[in-house]
């Protein structure tokens, strides 16, 4: 007999401070969500006639999942994991152990996506265009001769632009060493260094499975940024400028030639296939000056801040452009996951 979807658990991590490019420690929590986002998210799920059990993905998450296992038809996994080497895949790993169905990628997919360097290696080996990169464990390692300035320095395993600020773009050895030191010491993880591209920048939301639907592409309009800000989706731009401007510095749907659009879509579909993504994700793409697109990053789970909290969260914004309200979007994600597990919804 087919199970039907009535009761879900919502797994999340909560941050206590709003992301601030000037507060190094606060940047560590950037991946997490505000309490208002969590509350609002739960209300929307309840509006879909579902009984919702919110569970914070902290040390007690496993026990709470185990205790409630028989009352959970599916988990909406929105958690990033608290700490550890592969924190984003802790919850999928627990859910596999407890045999509870869940939205989003498997532990392998989430682990690959979290480790930017290895995700790029895998994509490159399958012919998906990614930039050459180097991983630094210390700030003193020699720079590969292949890498030419300007370069960008990122934490290897952090999302939501955490650790990516105006200072991340480095023009010389001194700046490189300074930024490596900051990333490695502040985030206690390796730093990824790759060429900084200053061509057009896109974000591509993908929804559903076999194949996923590509929602309207978002383009960052760096020409509207305040003076002094470098043309990239930095922490300053994503969490401050975009909020203050109400989204005036991005365009959705992107004004894009059919050729480039097709190229980007093919790259994203290939990325989805290679990394075995599931249900929903958002892929960041940047072009070089010749207009060739490269995969910068994969966001899984992608940010889904409800509209009453923020009107600039990329995935829900793109869904709205496609004529899909927030609850319909959530319903589609749940439906995609249910379909994979044979759950009626």
């Amino acid at each position, binding site marked *: 007999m087919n199970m039907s979807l009535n009761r879900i658990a919502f797994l999340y991590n909560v941050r206590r401070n709003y992301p601030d490019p000037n507060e190094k420690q606060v940047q560590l929590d950037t991946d997490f969500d505000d309490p208002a986002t969590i509350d609002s998210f739960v209300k929307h799920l309840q509006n879909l006639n579902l009984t919702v059990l919110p569970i914070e*993905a902290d040390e007690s998450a496993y026990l709470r999942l185990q205790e409630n296992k028989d009352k959970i038809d599916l988990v909406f996994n929105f958690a990033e994991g608290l700490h550890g080497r592969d924190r984003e895949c802790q*919850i999928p790993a627990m859910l596999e152990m407890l045999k509870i169905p869940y939205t989003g990628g498997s532990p392998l997919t989430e*682990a690959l996506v979290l480790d930017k360097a290895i995700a790029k*290696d895998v994509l490159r080996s399958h012919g998906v265009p990614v930039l050459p990169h180097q991983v630094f464990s210390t700030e003193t390692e020699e720079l590969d001769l292949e890498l030419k300035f300007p370069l960008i320095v990122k934490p290897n395993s952090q999302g939501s632009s955490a650790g990516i600020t105006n200072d991340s773009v480095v023009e010389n050895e001194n700046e490189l060493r300074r930024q490596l030191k900051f990333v490695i010491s502040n985030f206690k993880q390796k730093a990824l260094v790759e060429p900084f591209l200053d061509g057009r920048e896109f974000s591509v939301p993908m929804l559903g499975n076999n194949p996923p639907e590509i929602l309207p592409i978002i383009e960052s309009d760096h020409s509207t940024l305040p003076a002094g800000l470098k043309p990239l989706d930095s922490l300053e731009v994503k969490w401050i400028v975009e909020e203050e401007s109400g989204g005036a510095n991005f365009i959705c749907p992107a004004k894009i030639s059919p050729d480039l659009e097709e190229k980007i879509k093919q790259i994203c579909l290939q990325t989805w296939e290679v990394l075995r993504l599931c249900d929903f994700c958002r892929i960041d793409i940047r072009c070089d000056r010749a207009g060739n697109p490269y995969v910068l990053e994969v966001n899984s789970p992608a940010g889904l801040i409800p509209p009453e909290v923020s009107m600039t969260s990329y995935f829900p914004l793109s869904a709205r452009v496609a004529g899909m309200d927030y609850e319909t979007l959530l319903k589609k994600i749940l439906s995609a996951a249910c379909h994979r597990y044979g759950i009626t919804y």
Partner: protein
Amino acid sequence: MDKEGSPQSVGIIYSEVKREYFPTETQYLTEKDAEHDAKIIGGYLERMGIKVFYYPGTPTLVVDLLRDRPEMVFNLVGSIHGQEYLASTIPGILESLDIPYTGAGILGETLAYNKFLVKDLLQSHGIPVPRSQLFSSPNLLLDMKMRFPLITKLNEIHGAVEITKDAVSDSEKHLRERLKFLINTYKQPALAEEFIAGREITAIVLEGLNRKVYLAEKIFKEENNPNQIASFEYQWTEEAHYQKFEDPYLADLVKRAFDVLRMSDYGKFDIRMDQSNRYYFIDSNSNPAFGPKELDCAIANILGLYGIDFTEILKRLLLNTMRDAQGKERLPFTPSEGNSNNESTTNEYVAE
């Protein structure tokens, strides 16, 4: 934790094994002694004055860990309910509880159970691997570049399961039959790779304060037959026979592979050397059979050739795991070491 950084209490998590969890007797054999082996290892730890807790890798594990609160655990789990790919759930649970553990994290463990992806990654980092193709169905078109003989392997299972003489195909007809058997029996994709005839080297990486590589050549009974394979029968039913092997170049490749595959603490690689002395990495394992010589594990047998006994292996892992947990930096690989050093005279902790 004592003054030297060693834990006072340690947990050992091992696979819970029942015959009905496994599709075949051969796969069951690879794990059937998990609890017994854990007790043997625990005996060594107890003799070091450490309190040892034993845990089967089951869904109730968390309750037991929270009750006992061991300072760290040895994660020896190779499968959950017979599913090897679920072994990565253990590091996930341990990380969420903030309990230090030996071995790879979730990424390293999940990668280990996808041999095709491992080969892709190694190749993309310039580490030589035989040409291979993944089959999710026995009827997929064979890549024209693939050259017979081909050896078929399960993509997600270690322990040389189904690596028998019948695993080597000289014809497409035989290959199809073999693929059909593997895919239908184990319900997972199978990998076909070009069979490299030649000598077989096993590399063990062990992390202490430094990471070191220990190389040994597998000596088969029929020494002059280049088509020998390290079959299931060889691995599980016959006594292993290793001899020291030296090559700094290979040791460097192994170090690189260890990093690429996100292994930690220890790992094992199988490498073939063809008749032109070219190396090919044919297998890697982030969680290989672990135990002392009496359990006939490669790690103890090979390190024994270098004068390192099992107690010393345990000491290194205990200290390394506790150091990692404190966020201390690990030292880089010791240059050109491992395959040529005489370990019996060294104690790397003195330097600390």
